[in-house]
Structure formats: C-alpha cells, structure tokens
C-alpha cells in the first residue's frame, strides 16, 4: 500500500488540549501497557535483533554469486533455501532487513525534522505566510505519492541517499500539517504568552515551548512514516525503479522473487513478504498505541 496514508490513520484532528509534558509522559508509559503496543515493540525488537545480531551467529556468503547453489529448496545447510543467485535466503533476509530498517528510520527522522520545522514556522507565523505555506503542502499532497515517484525517479540516478531524499520529500507533508495544527492551538496558550511577556524571542518560544509540546504528534507520525517508507520503497522496486542488484532489502527481494513464484520457488517469495509485512504491522501497531494513549478522547472509551 502506498504512503501518505498517515492522514487516513488520523480520524479527525488530534485534540490539542489537556496535553502537556506530563500527559506525554503518561502516554509513553501506557504505550507499553496496551496489548497492540506490546506486540509491536516485541516484534520490532525481534526483527532488529534478527537483522543486526543474526549475521554474527549465522554466517553466510552474501557476496559472490554461486549459480551452482541457485534455487535450492529449504533443507540442511539452507533452512529457507537459496535464491536465484545462490544466496542463502536467511542470510539475505538479515542483510535486507538491515537496509530496510535503516531506510525506514532515515526517512522517518528526516521527515520529522523537515515536517516539524516547516509546520512550526507556518503555525507560529500564521496569517498570509501560513496560508501560502499550507497551499504548497496541499499542492504536493494532491499528487499521489507513487505518481510523484514515477516522475522523480526519472530525474535522479537511484542510490540509497536519493531514495531516502525522495521518500522524505513525499512524507514530510502530512507531518508538517499536523505540527502546524498543534502549534496553532499551542501558541495561544497562557504559558506561551507568559514566555513572550518575559522577553523570549520567537525562536526560543518555538524551540522551547511549541515543538516539545507537539512531540507526541511528531512521534506518532514518525512511527507511521517508518512503515510507509518501507512499503513505498517496496512498490518502487516492484515497478523496476529501485536500487540495482548488489543491494539487498526486503522490498527488492520480494519484487525480484515474484518472477519465480510461478515456477514453484515459493521460498524465494514468501520469507521476505512475511518479514516485510510483520515489520510494517509492528510499526503500525506501535504508532496506533502511541496515538491512542496520547488521545485523551479515545482513552476514555
């Protein structure tokens, strides 16, 4: 599923009132308390351990192509078999997991930074500047992200950094909109006025008072962005617009493997699919749990 769906996951505006540092803290504590959040965190820990610690105990050759070992079914020596280049699937999953997770995390951090800065500026300045900045966001949001990518990948030679930059360009929009909404309600609060009366400059108010109080919204969105980025990149590599072969990630493994599904090589296709889906589910569960725990209106039910 394509990205830009963070908007869909937010039923209406996230209420901005009765939330401060204390509520944030309470929210963070109850994330670990919700069932979905626990499952999500457990899954993420397991997947990270598998991808980053796995290669330390499970050594495989992921460098040289060995056609003699190609498409071996699961069995002794290769628990999940080998792919068309003779790479061990389990080892490949670990390697692919590293880049998929790194990609998701990088896009998420970049998105949070860009979206927060943009949204905070628009929300704090208000008026004409805000209207103009938001119309820019609306404009980009009106173009489906996959359509946007179909155009953009033609303008850049794909490598890990351009892919991260492209995915960030698409996902900061929703974040900036949410942060702007938060800042808009926060900036009229008494403590912000008090800070201003005491002589705080705009930069200080935005940095010390507005952004930290919008942290909950930013965190929720950053979590969803990880899931979205991994999925969107998978769609991109399916359309043949991903990174070239020596690179390994679950999306590429999955879309390359699809060619072999009809030949009966199911072990090339389903393992990366399962890993990818589990990871995306896990981050969505965490995101949902964080949002529910921050959302006062929902917590009551």
């Amino acid at each position, binding site marked *: 599923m394509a990205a*830009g769906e963070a908007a*869909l996951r937010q039923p209406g505006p996230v209420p901005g009132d009765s939330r401060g540092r204390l509520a944030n803290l309470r929210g963070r504590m109850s994330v670990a308390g919700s069932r979905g959040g626990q499952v999500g965190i457990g899954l993420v820990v397991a997947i990270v351990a598998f991808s980053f610690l796995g290669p330390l105990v499970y050594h495989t050759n992921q460098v040289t192509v060995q056609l003699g070992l190609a498409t071996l079914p699961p069995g002794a020596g290769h628990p999940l078999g080998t792919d068309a280049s003779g790479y061990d699937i389990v080892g490949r999953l670990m390697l692919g997991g590293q880049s998929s997770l790194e990609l998701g995390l990088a896009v998420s951090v970049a998105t949070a930074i860009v979206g927060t800065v943009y949204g905070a500026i628009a929300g704090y300045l208000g008026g004409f500047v805000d209207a103009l900045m938001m119309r820019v966001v609306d404009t980009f949001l*009106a173009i489906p992200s996959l359509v946007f990518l179909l*155009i953009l990948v*033609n303008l850049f030679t794909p490598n890990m950094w351009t892919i991260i930059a492209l995915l960030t360009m698409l996902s900061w929009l929703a974040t900036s909109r949410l942060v702007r909404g938060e800042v808009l309600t926060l900036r009229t609060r008494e403590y912000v006025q008090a800070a201003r009366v005491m002589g705080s400059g705009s930069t200080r108010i935005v940095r010390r008072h507005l952004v930290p109080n919008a942290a909950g919204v930013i965190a929720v969105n950053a979590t969803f962005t990880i899931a979205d980025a991994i999925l969107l990149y998978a*769609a991109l590599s399916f*359309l043949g617009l991903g990174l070239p072969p020596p690179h390994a990630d679950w999306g590429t493994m*999955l879309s390359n493997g699809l060619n072999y599904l*009809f030949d009966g090589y199911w072990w090339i296709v389903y393992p990366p699919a399962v890993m990818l*889906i589990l990871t995306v589910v896990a981050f969505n569960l965490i995101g949902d749990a964080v949002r529910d725990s921050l959302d006062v209106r929902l917590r009551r039910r």
Partner: protein
Amino acid sequence: MTGYLLRRAGQSVAVVIGLMIVTFIMIHLVPGSAARSVLGVRATPGRIAIFDSTYGLNEPLYRQFLTYLDQVVHGNFGTSYLLQEPVSTLIAQRVPKDLVLVGISTALALAIALPMGIYQAVRRDRLDDHLLTGASFTLYSMPDFFFAIVLIAIFSVQLHVFPPEAPSATSLGGILADPRALVLPVVTLALVTLASYSRYMRSSAIEVLAQDYIRVVRAKGVPERLVLSRHVLRNAALPVVTMVGLSFPNIIAGAVIAEEVFNYPGMGLLMYQASTSHDFPILLGCTLVIGVATVVGSLAADISYAILDPRVHYGRG
C-alpha cells in the same frame, strides 16, 4: 457556511494553479532527456535541436509555462513524444476505464467495510473483533503488488477460475463484456482501501453506539437489527463516506500497481509506461488530471460533510 465554502473553493483554485507550476517545473528539470529518449542515445545534436524547437523545449521556462497554461485552459495537454497522439485524447480514452475500475472496487470496499466496522464495534474487544482487526492490519501492511500476484498464483495458476490479465479489449464496452477478467484487478484495488475504511468505520460506530439517541431507540424497544441498520449505520457511515473523497490519492496509487500487474489499460498503466520512456507530456497531463480530481474530491467531501451533517459549523480559522 457560505463564507467557509467560498474560502475552501478559493484554496482549491490556488492549489490547482500550484499543481500546474509544480508539475511543470519538476518535469522540466531535465529538458535534454526527452529528445534523447525519443530519438535514441545516438541522436545527433542537430536532430535534438530540431526536436527541441518542434516541441518548444528551447524557449525560456516561463514562456513554456505560459504556453502550457494557455493550452491547458483550452483543453490541450500537448502531444505525446512517443505515441504521437494528443495527450488529452489518450487521457480521455483511459478515464472511463479508470472510473469503472475505481468505482466498482470502491463500492465493493464500502459494501464490506461498513458492515464489518459495525460488527466489530458491536463485538468490541471480543475474540472475533481482535481477529478482524488483525486481518485488516495485515491487509493494510501488505504491499498491494504482492497481494495481486498471490491472487494470480491462487486463482489463475492453481484454480484457473479467473484470468491473470485484465480484459484485453481497448473499448469500454469490450471491458465490461468480460467481467470475469475484471474480478482480480477490482479485488486488488478494493483491498487497498478496505482495511482503512473498516478501521475507520469501527471507531466511528463505537462513537455512535455510545450516543444517547441509540440508548433511546433501544429503550423504545426497536429490534437490534433495526437499531444497527437504521441508526448506527447511517450516522457512523457519514465520516467514512466523506473519507472516500480524501483517500483518492491512495486509490490512484493502488490503481497504478493494479493496472501494471494486470495490464489493465487505464491511466495508471499509461503513466507507468510514460515514466519508463520519459514521455513528459503524458506524465504532466495525467498528474494534472489526478491532482485536480483530488482537489475536487476533497472539496466535495468537505461540502457534503457540511451539508449532510447539520451539526457541523465552520467558523473562521
């Protein structure tokens, strides 16, 4: 409310103008490659110059944009580099097919999501609710191309129930004449939105079930079936139906994938093919049409929400 609607309409116009500027600038970031992709990598500089002047690619950007703006207003989206046909003709051929695909699959998604959401709301926190939530989470987190291929593997390769390709006919009538071939693309696209609709419907229905008027209706002795179908469904579906308008970009993104997998001759496939051949006029035209449709969709969603729900009042802000 009139003021609000006028302001929303004004914003939409601004966004449409923004769309034209953005897509235009973006697509002209690499002017040279259009000629190269059409004439081949070995094209001589002279032929490239002729190509560029034929399509006005050597003029200053702002002049090209004004020309483009003038053309668009007159319904002219330029000529495809590769297919040598007017883009407006190409798009006009594809739009009805997309309406069929998107329309049927959205109707299917809603037909499943609305009852499913109510059922989950009624059975909240029971085992079946958790199972359905798990199912929609999994669907939601699944790459749609993977889902499409698995459908083909099961229903076409194994069971031979449905063909793996969309109807091959180019005319709309030909496509509708072969409904079996439509099944898999429609199901794929429906599942793109089903998960988010049903989750949204669930939380909306939970909210409605807690309202006093539902308690009143139940106290009057109305059978539960009627309470759900007449009172809960209508009230809870309102925000979901307006959300359909807002989810348009996601549906289109899903359509690009579904059309690529099933070779369905819609706008998504056209765009994908244009992207691989650097056919900028097509990309520009399609992006504009989709962007404008998105803007109109979200405007329509807002307006219908304001009209349908008398409790909604918009102040300034």
